[in-house]
């Protein structure tokens, strides 16, 4: 056996090579991107406005609800408690407190959803579409010729993407707390971190799987990514507790179950329970308890990473056989 072959099969060498590939691919995202600082404004701060709009919707609803509770008329001297007049001042005060708590919890849901939106968009546009994008700009052939494992390449993209996106996610959280005055009550920080990272690994695992599938789908990939924005925001409950979908008779539970295949659904549900307390919204809008959702997320993370490995190998073979691996605009 040649010395070069022996070296290539050496486990230590291979681990080192793949780790270098992870660092190498994440480098342009973490360091390279910062050479163009305008991205902080365009990619991290500007999108906060969209989140703010959803926050103001709940504030508008809350303001109108509070005005109805406090409004006094001849038929409802203590204001309206829901659709019926309040019976006394105590009931009015209870409804007022509930309306304020619900508004805060819903705004907090939007802020957490906005944080997750950042990661989901990064998964779609900088993970799933990335190999297709690399093919279009001519880098894919270089990656395919390089000796590292292709999963290391995707891993590097994921690590770089996570770090880059954290800027936007953190900005959203800070804006939520300091600009919109959202109150979070974190009872179990360790579990919160576990859920967050399990959700991220599962999300990026899904992105890695999509990356190879997108190579197969070609030009449809771009449109598919666009199609997985609003419909996923809706079915995964990015801006409202997804349990609300289960309360819509007929189509609601079906949409929610379909949306549950995206790890963000369980990730967000668990994060909301951990930061708003399980009693928020009367405890009626959660899917499962936090630990069950964590197990599901860990299972999804492992499953998507395995599927990513296999789909990448399959697509690589298929593309090589058909000779379309580097043909652009198809």
């Amino acid at each position: 056996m040649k010395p070069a072959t022996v070296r290539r099969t050496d486990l230590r060498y291979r681990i080192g090579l793949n780790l270098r590939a992870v660092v190498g691919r994440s480098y342009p995202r973490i360091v390279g991107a910062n050479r163009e600082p305008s991205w902080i404004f365009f990619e991290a701060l500007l999108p906060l406005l969209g989140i703010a709009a959803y926050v103001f919707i709940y504030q508008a609803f809350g303001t109108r609800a509070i005005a109805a509770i406090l409004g006094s008329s001849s038929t409802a001297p203590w204001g309206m408690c829901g659709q019926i007049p309040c019976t006394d001042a105590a009931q009015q005060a209870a409804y007022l407190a509930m309306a304020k708590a619900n508004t805060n919890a819903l705004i907090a849901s939007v802020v957490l959803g906005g944080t997750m939106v950042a990661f989901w968009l990064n998964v779609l546009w900088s993970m799933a579409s990335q190999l297709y994008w690399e093919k279009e700009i001519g880098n894919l052939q270089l990656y395919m010729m390089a000796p590292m494992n292709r999963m290391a390449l995707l891993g590097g993209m994921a690590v770089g993407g996570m770090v880059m996106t954290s800027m936007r996610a953190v900005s959203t959280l800070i804006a939520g707390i300091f600009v919109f005055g959202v109150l979070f009550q974190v009872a179990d920080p360790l579990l919160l971190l576990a859920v967050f990272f399990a959700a991220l690994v599962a999300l990026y695992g899904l992105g890695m799987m999509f990356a190879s599938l997108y190579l197969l789908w070609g030009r449809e990939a771009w449109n598919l990514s666009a199609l997985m924005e609003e419909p996923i925001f809706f079915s995964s409950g990015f801006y409202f507790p997804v349990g609300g979908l289960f309360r819509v008779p007929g189509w609601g539970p079906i949409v929610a179950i379909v949306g549950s295949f995206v790890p963000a659904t369980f990730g967000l549900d668990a994060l909301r329970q951990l930061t708003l307390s399980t009693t928020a919204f009367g405890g009626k809008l959660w899917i499962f308890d936090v630990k069950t959702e964590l197990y599901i997320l860990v299972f999804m993370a492992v499953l998507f990473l395995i599927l990513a490995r296999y789909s990448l190998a399959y697509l690589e073979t298929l593309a090589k056989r058909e000779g379309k691996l580097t043909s652009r605009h198809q």
Partner: protein
Amino acid sequence: MNTFWRTFKVAAWLGWEMDSNWTEPWLFIVYSVVKPVAGAFILVLMYTVFALIGNRADPAAFSYMYVGNSFFIFVGSVLFGTFQVIQSDREWYQTIRYVYMAPISYYVYIVGRAASKVVVAAFAVLITLVFGIIFLDVQIHMALADVPLFLVSTALGLAVRLASGIFLGGGSFLTAKHTHGLAEGIPGLFYVFCGVLFPLSVLPVWGQAIGQAIPLTYWFDITRRLLAPTIGVDSTLVGYDNLAILLLLLVSSIAFFGLSLLIFKAGEYFARKAGKIDMTTSY
């Protein structure tokens, strides 16, 4: 003039082919409808959840929000349709150098490329509104006599949006591949400050001032007044009658057109000077 028209026509055809020929027509129609309807459904569920946990339905606020959101589809599509042309030609297709060197007006080319998105957006707005009326009980009662006013205001609103898109396009000559940040952030600016989903009074005073300085705020207001005059939510713009709003839209569309030309030319000049016309961002 003939060259402008020919450029517009060919660019519009090119834009349409690029938008639609990646798939079968029926799938393209589904795709064009699913995105905006899902966007509307996010709001439907936000309202449903609030009504559910607060035991209080508020159909007027819902109709206000739904109509505003339906017409917002125009804003997102037209803005994205214009400013993304530069970045997609430059970064994705890498054809900007050829188009840019051609003896045509690049400004008119961008407007032409955006035309297909305007048509698709109009279709999506219509579907979203019809869906809302039939299935969600959205309160729309437009009088026949108001149709001409509605058409004029829609045309003026479109002119303002196109000019704003080109304005952004001028800026994107100089920036890296920020299409998604811009696509999300700039419509977000209008989403927050133009009274699309909630009355301006919800915003802090400085936010209301920003909203009142943006012409699209008045476009949303007149559109809602004409389409849904019975919802009775105070939009804080009651001091302006319909004709005043139309006049304001006319003046601002002319002003925005001039401004867009200025910014576009400035962006172009500085990009050429810095050698950025055909740069690519590879991270």
